[in-house]
């Protein structure tokens, strides 16, 4: 349903602005070129027919042909998608590895200097524009220290700067949520009971507390996945990362609207799929949900 809606939205986006052919050809193109392009791309057909054909083709995996590269949009996206997913997952892993321990420590050491420092870092992290952070990282680790490559892909070292800058989109928010969720759970009776039974503190935190605080954390990760995919547009442009984010920015400057439509559609469908997985994971994380469903 959402996929169909996104298809309509993406199709409408190009058509609502007027004649899509005028968006695609050069502003000084002669009228006969405009007419020919309109006919070749089928934009002289009725709107419902155009949408029907677009949707029918999309369902078969055909997202049209790039106007600039003269190659199928699906092929272009499939070539670039793995790089974007690798970058996004790397950023997600970095955010989780940093934010979850930081949130837990903050909750356990509530009110101490560690808590204040961690939460000040989280609040600051939420305010940092990623493109500025990316430039600072390039200036320091790439240009001054020459420790890490600042553009392109190919090795593990190439991942570090783009993934770290992308991860800050969700890191601060995640750390704050982990802290507040843990504080809520740590005050519950079952945690007190576990401690009274002599269960070790690390087991109390990992098994009794974190598992029960997991649902809001996983939900946030699912919702923020769209932010990461969106942030990849900026990160890939700065670091010349060969993913679909850079592809869409290049397509916009080249007025290559079939590519823009295709990327928006694919990214939205990935987001929908990720959130479906998040919904399914609730049953794994909380047996009560499994029982209710059954």
């Amino acid at each position, binding site marked *: 349903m959402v996929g169909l809606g996104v298809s309509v939205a993406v199709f409408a986006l190009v058509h609502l602005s007027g004649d899509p052919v005028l968006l695609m050809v050069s502003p000084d193109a002669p009228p006969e070129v405009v007419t020919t392009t309109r006919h070749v791309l089928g934009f002289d057909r009725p709107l419902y027919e155009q949408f029907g054909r677009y949707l029918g083709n999309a369902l078969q995996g055909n997202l049209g042909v790039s106007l600039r590269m003269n190659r199928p949009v699906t092929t272009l996206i499939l070539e670039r998608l793995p790089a974007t997913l690798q970058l996004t997952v790397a950023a997600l892993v970095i955010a989780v590895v940093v934010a979850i321990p930081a949130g837990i420590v903050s909750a356990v050491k509530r009110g101490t200097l560690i808590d204040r420092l961690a939460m000040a870092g989280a609040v600051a992290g939420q*305010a940092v*524009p990623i*493109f500025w952070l990316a430039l600072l990282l390039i200036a320091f680790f790439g*240009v001054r220290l020459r420790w890490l490559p600042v553009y392109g892909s190919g090795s593990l070292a190439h991942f570090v700067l783009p993934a770290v800058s992308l991860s800050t989109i969700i890191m601060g*928010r995640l750390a704050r949520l982990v802290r507040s969720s843990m504080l809520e759970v740590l005050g519950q009776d079952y945690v007190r009971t576990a401690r009274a039974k002599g269960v070790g503190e690390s087991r109390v935190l990992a098994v009794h507390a974190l598992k029960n605080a997991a649902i809001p954390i996983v939900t946030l990760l699912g919702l923020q996945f769209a932010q990461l995919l*969106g942030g990849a547009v900026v990160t890939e442009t700065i670091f010349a990362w060969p993913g679909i984010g850079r592809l869409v*920015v290049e397509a916009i400057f080249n007025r290559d609207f079939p590519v823009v439509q295709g990327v928006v559609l694919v990214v939205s469908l990935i987001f929908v799929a990720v959130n479906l997985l998040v919904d399914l994971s609730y049953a794994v994380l909380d047996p009560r949900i499994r029982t209710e469903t059954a």
Partner: protein
Amino acid sequence: MRRGELTMWLAALFLGLTLVVAIFAGAVAPYRANEQDIARRLQPPALGPHLLGTDEVGRDVLSRLIYGARISLLVGVVAVALSCPLGVFVGVLAGYAGRRTDDVLMRVTEIQLAIPAILLAIAVVAVLGPGIRNVILTLSVTGWTLYARLTRGETLGVKARDFVQAARATGAGDLRIMTHHVLPNVLSPVIVVAVFAVANMIILEATLSFLGLGVEPDVVTWGRMLNGGRLYLSTAWWITAFPGLAIFLTVLAVNLLGDQLRDWLDPRLRNTLRSHQL
């Protein structure tokens, strides 16, 4: 005064000063935004005529920061002022009307939420073309869903309350109930969300400008200043450092203000997933 309140007052003071400086940019800025002095290009920050240095064509970085504040604040505030009423209208209508209206409006909201905001913004601005008006319109189009979802949830709770039932029993029409009884009772969380949204809009505008998709080329913005300084990272750090810092401090101040406002107006939002989604 508690630490949270002190932080809030400091944030408010910073934002107030930024606003005043932005409004009176013509009187406060030492130079005009696009005034060039090629002979003094890439001057580092120093006490003298160019306190924060000059850029690649000899423009004063401090003056450009001051003029850039106008666009950031204007776009952030106006985009929220447009998207918030639209989202509230959709949310109250969906929550109050229920059934098919609710289904349709919430499906539309979900569809838009499935498209990452920045991707939607660059696609819309690419179709509409550059310019302040189009950027504001674009950001408003991307922002209304947040308020719609929030207001719809609040409306569902409020419409079941006794005072709404009492109003209906006294013969009040749907429009009157929505505007006089439901709306005032759902506004507190909306105000909190709107404050956080200003910060998001400032970052989104800066991102569009940074990508070269924002306002007209001759209009100075913090995002465009950052983009211009990219090529001089190794030789002139100040061109990128100061506009980035300006965005960071402004967004930080808005967020801190939002945090305190949330604790005052709607403490229920504290420690919830919803507050962290903002």
